């Protein structure tokens, strides 16, 4: 097995609404792929050369472009970006909100096995093509649609509202302490996003008081005890990350690029109730999420002590809450302590989501995994600008699909 390095990449500005700009998926792909390659120091001619010897591939992560953008065969679509991509092996990978992590997984394998020298991961989703209610129904396909999605208005906030209920019940938590902890997560992620020039919410106002007061006209309840401030917002966007072999970096005279040190991939039972039934015997509310992270630690030979920054899948505040113990930052049941003590804030000892995460930076679902990997790369290579955490050697991400059904974790370091 060979080491898999990251050459760089780019994300689009998640504030943008491509439908309002009158632009569709081709414009999004052209822009993100050309920007991603340029940021990695590659040209389309480089891709052409690599393709002559079958040493490059494109790996597309997208959840449900068939519905949002009325387009299937999304791997092949990449050939329309530039003629240099004619003949390049491309395919689309789907695992709901973890789609681009599945694409990273495939890309990683090809390089680790020595088959390819360069692998271009392209995660994207256009979500502003439909109104929020229709979009909410589309997203319901990431759950067991027949029972958990169909005919239910905004199914996912409700599922993660149930996760909040389960956390309180499992650990006998004080409800106020728990809900205030969720408000702190929201305020933290909005605050971090202010430092990120590509974050969807960078101009929005949110503070702890606004997040804490749920059920008001400007912070309505949307899923059980969760309100708008507890949710990530839908947006349009793409993120491109270029992976490469050690040999290819050497050819280009590159040294010290960050590499993927470990990975974990576990899939939990799909229906939420089955997940909860399955977790009764575990100290963790999401044991397969924890397992994916443990696998990444094991493969990298690292522990939570070695990780300097985390990017996690805060589709809702309750999912970031559960991730805190899954990462091993606290034992399960004591996540609120890490929040109260400021451990996961930007200045804390274990910063979580310095980018703003899904709540602050935005969540174009098929792009989020690639966006996280790109952010790990930026943090490890000191290129995160205003949201750079000091002295990052190793960084970890957790990207989940559905109600924490597909769980992907990667560790990037030097």
């Amino acid at each position: 097995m060979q080491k898999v390095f990251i050459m760089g990449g780019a994300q689009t500005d998640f504030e943008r609404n491509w439908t309002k700009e009158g632009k569709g998926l081709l414009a999004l792909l052209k822009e993100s792929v050309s920007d991603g390659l340029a940021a990695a120091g590659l040209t389309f001619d480089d891709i052409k050369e690599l393709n002559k010897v079958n040493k490059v591939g494109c790996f597309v992560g997208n959840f449900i472009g068939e519905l949002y953008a009325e387009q299937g065969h999304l791997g092949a679509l990449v050939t329309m970006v530039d003629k240099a991509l004619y003949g390049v092996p491309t395919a689309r990978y789907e695992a709901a909100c973890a789609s681009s992590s599945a694409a990273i997984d495939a890309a990683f394998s090809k390089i680790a096995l020595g088959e390819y020298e360069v692998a271009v991961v392209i995660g994207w989703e256009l979500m502003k093509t439909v109104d929020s209610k229709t979009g909410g129904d589309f997203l319901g396909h990431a759950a067991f649609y027949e029972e958990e999605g169909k005919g239910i208005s905004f199914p996912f906030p409700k599922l993660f509202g149930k996760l909040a209920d389960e956390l309180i019940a499992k650990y006998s938590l004080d409800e106020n302490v728990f809900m205030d902890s969720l408000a702190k997560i929201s305020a933290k992620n909005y605050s971090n996003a202010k430092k990120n020039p590509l974050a969807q919410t960078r101009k929005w106002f949110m503070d702890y008081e606004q997040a804490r007061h749920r059920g008001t006209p400007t912070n309505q309840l949307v899923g059980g005890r969760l309100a708008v401030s507890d949710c990530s917002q839908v947006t349009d966007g793409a993120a491109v990350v270029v992976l490469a072999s050690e040999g290819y970096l050497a050819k280009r005279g590159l040294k010290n690029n960050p590499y993927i040190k470990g990975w974990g991939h576990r899939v939990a039972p799909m229906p939420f109730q089955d997940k909860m039934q399955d977790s009764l015997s575990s100290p963790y509310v999401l044991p397969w999420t924890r397992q994916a992270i443990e696998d990444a630690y094991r493969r990298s030979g690292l522990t939570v002590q070695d990780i300097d920054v985390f990017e996690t899948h805060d589709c809702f505040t309750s999912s970031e809450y559960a991730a805190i113990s899954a990462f091993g930052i606290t034992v399960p049941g004591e996540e609120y302590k890490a929040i109260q003590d400021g451990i996961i804030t930007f200045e804390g000892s274990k910063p979580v989501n310095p980018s703003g995460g899904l709540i602050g930076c935005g969540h174009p679902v098929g792009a989020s995994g690639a966006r996280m990997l790109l952010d790990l790369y930026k943090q490890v290579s000191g290129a995160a600008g205003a949201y750079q955490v000091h002295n990052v050697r190793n960084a970890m991400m957790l990207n989940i699909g559905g109600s924490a059904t597909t769980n992907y974790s990667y560790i990037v370091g030097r």
Partner: protein
Amino acid sequence: MSIRTVTVIGANGTMGRNVSAIFASFGNAKVHMVCRDMEKAKEAVEKAVQSVKADSIRRNLLPADFSTLLDCVRESDLVFDSVAENMEIKGEVIGQIRDALPQDAYFCSGTSGLSITKLAEMLPEEKRRNVFGVHFFNPPYSLNLCELIKTNYSDVNKHQKLREYLSSCLHRSVVEIKDRPAFLGNRIGFQFLNEAMQYAQRCQDSGGIDYIDSILGPFSGRSMPPLVTSDFVGLDIHQAIVDNLYSNLASGDKEAYKMPDFAVSLVKEGRLGRKTKGGLYKTLILSENDKKRLVFDIASSTYRDQIEYNFSFAQKAIHHLARGDYQAAAFSIFNNESQEAEICTEFLLKYIFYSLQASLEVGNSTHDADVVMVHGYGWCPPQAMLEWISSTGMLHSISKERLPKSFQEIFDIDMLLGVAQKSGFDYRRYLHAKK
């Protein structure tokens, strides 16, 4: 620096209440919203809450009327003037508060173009060092530009601290501007808007208003066509801004700010735009669910149905933009010799050169022009526009060929191209694939 208490005078106006919300939210300051009467003040509080979509700031918003003005001012760290754009009215208000204003408190005016120096001179000498122009754009929640204007009286330290507060605490994009008429953003923006109005008059036989708006549609770098924008802003406000520039600019470029006769007449007749249900455009309500938009036909001085123009250059540009082919879109516009493409090209080129020139006169660098147009108007910034046109390799030649000789006599094209910098902004997001 800590700004704990703010008084906004004239908080019933759109800017006054929206600015109150910015101080109360990002700044977490207690804000006295001083309005004409308490009822208006209470309404303003609710509208302010809505403007930042956060009920949590209601705790910071205190309705007030002029009967308690002095008490509010006495306990304020910053007093913000948002009363009518009229030197006399502002003078009266300043006269009222001049003694109550604490020695160290800031006095900031939100004026969109009156002289800050003259306002400062209405205060006693020892308080003039605390006077600044702090010009927000509407709506400030989404347009976060703040033009910061100091005067010769301003205290350097206070200026630095205010700048820091506006950018770090209130999350504003701050640009320091000299105390000149209309500052920078409106000087650039209203050159474009007013010349669009002048061209509408000149091209009245080709259609006039909707003709020009179709030539300068969203595909050319603004989400809203220019004359729709003026109608939205209000023709009276448009007039106040361009009149101010026309009377106070010395240089030869002032003609761009002369409001055309037809628009002056509309203002006289009270047809001010959207707020009066008629101006350059007019919405006709046919039934509960059926509306029709009419346009003012300059040639016949009547409202008529809008014309669906289908200029081939625009259609091609839109087709390419929709697919992300920006260079091809640029060729569609700049390599086309139809009358409409030439007008579009002329406007975009003038926009670039006016911006560069104005930024040198009023700002500190050409980058300031980009910042004000992005964060104050949401338009494609001039230097990014320049990069887009440059992608055709034709920038220099079309600048020389398409710009009127009279323009080139006033603006030194080569010098301005020489001082232009690489824009920190990306033009792509501002070029919309829409008519």
